[in-house]
C-alpha cells in the first residue's frame, strides 16, 4: 500500500508535472519506466512493441497528467494508462478477445490465503512467461506494487472477486511450474 510519505511525494510530483516542469517529468519517467516496462513486457511478446508502447504511455501521461485529480492514486493511474495502451496494441495486433478469453473459475472460500515465499526472482521471472495472460497480468501487478486487490481490479477493470480468483489460480500455476523446476515454494 502507498505510505503517507509516498502519497505526499506523488502529490508534489504530480503538481510539478501539471506545471509542465521538465525536471519533474524526467523524475516521473525515471521512477516508473522500469516497472511499467516490466508490466508491459509481460503483456506483449515483442520487445520492440514493448518499447513503442512505453513511449506511447509517456506521451499520454505527459498530456493527460493535468487531468489527474487524485495525485495519491498516481500508481493506479499509470498502470491503467499502461494497460489501456498495451491492450489497444494487442487488439490491433491479434485481437484481444482471442488472447484474453478465459473462463473464470470461482475460488472456494478459505482458499485465498496462499502466500509466496521464494527467493529466486530470476526463476519466477521465467516462470511468469509460462502462465496465461490474465493470470500473468494480475500476478505481475501483485509483484511489482503494493497494490490492494481493489486497486488491481480498478486497473484491470474487472470485479474484485475476479481478481481474487485470478490471483489464486495464478499463484497455484506459478507454484506448480516452480516446483517442477525444483524451486522451494510453499
Amino acid at each position: 500500500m502507498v505510505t503517507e510519505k509516498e502519497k505526499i511525494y506523488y502529490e508534489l510530483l504530480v503538481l510539478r508535472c501539471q506545471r509542465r516542469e521538465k525536471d519533474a517529468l524526467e523524475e516521473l519517467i525515471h521512477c516508473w519506466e522500469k516497472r511499467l516496462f516490466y508490466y508491459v513486457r509481460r503483456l506483449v511478446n515483442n520487445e520492440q512493441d514493448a518499447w513503442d508502447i512505453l513511449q506511447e504511455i509517456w506521451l499520454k501521461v505527459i498530456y493527460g497528467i493535468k487531468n489527474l485529480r487524485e495525485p495519491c492514486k498516481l500508481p493506479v493511474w499509470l498502470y491503467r494508462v499502461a494497460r489501456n495502451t498495451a491492450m489497444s496494441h494487442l487488439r490491433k495486433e491479434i485481437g484481444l478477445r482471442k488472447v484474453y478469453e478465459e473462463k473464470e473459475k470461482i475460488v472456494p472460500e478459505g482458499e485465498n490465503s496462499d502466500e509466496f515465499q521464494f527467493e529466486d526472482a530470476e526463476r519466477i521471472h521465467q516462470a511468469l512467461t509460462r502462465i496465461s495472460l490474465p493470470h500473468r497480468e494480475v500476478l505481475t501487478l501483485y509483484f511489482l506494487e503494493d497494490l490492494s486487490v481493489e486497486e488491481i481490479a480498478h486497473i484491470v477493470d474487472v470485479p474484485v472477486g475476479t481478481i481474487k480468483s485470478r490471483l489464486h489460480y495464478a499463484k497455484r500455476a506459478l507454484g506448480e511450474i516452480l516446483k517442477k523446476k525444483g524451486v522451494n515454494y510453499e
Partner: protein
Amino acid sequence: MNKIPKNLRDGLIESEQFSLNLKEKYEKEVRAMLEIKMSKIFRWSYLVGGILALGVAAFFAYGAMLFKGVMFYKDSQIWGRIIFGLSAVFCLVWAGLMLWIAKTGTFHLKKHPSAIAGLAWVGTIFSTTIFLVMAARDPDSTKSVFIVVASSLFLICASAGFILVRVGLAELNTRESLLKIELRLAELAEEMHKKG
C-alpha cells in the same frame, strides 16, 4: 494487502533482459518528447501577435517623434510625446514576450502567465492614467465624467483579472511549499522510526 518483499520486486525488474539498441532508441524518443512544444496554431498566433505588437510599437514611436499637439491641446506636446513614447516601449516589451514564446515554442506555466498578467496590468494603469489626464484637461465636464467612469470600469475589470491570476499562482506556490515541508517531515519521521 500484499506482502511482497522489495528485493523480490527489484530482482524481477533486474531479471528483465532488453536490447541496448532498442532502449537507446526509446530514450532518444522520450527525450525529444519531453521538449514540450505548443501546437503550430498557438505558435503562429504568438508570432502574429508579436509582429502586430511590433507594428503598433513602430506606430507609437513614429507618433512620439512627430507629435505636434494636434490630438489634445496645443500646450500638450510634451505630454503627447511621453504618452506615445511609453506606449511604444510597452508594445515593444509585449512583442518581445510574444516573439520569445513563438521562438522557443514553449509556454512556461510558472513564468509566462505572471509576465502576461503583469504586462496587462501595467498597460491598464498606463491607459487609465492617460484617460484621467485627458479627463482633467477637458473643459466639457460631461465628457470628463464619462471618461473617468469608463476608465474606472476598465481598471476594475483589469484588477479583478490580475488578482485572479496572482491568487491562482500563489495558491499553487503555497501548495507546493506546504507539500515540500510535509514531505520533509514524513522523511524525518521515517528516519526517527528507523532509529527506534
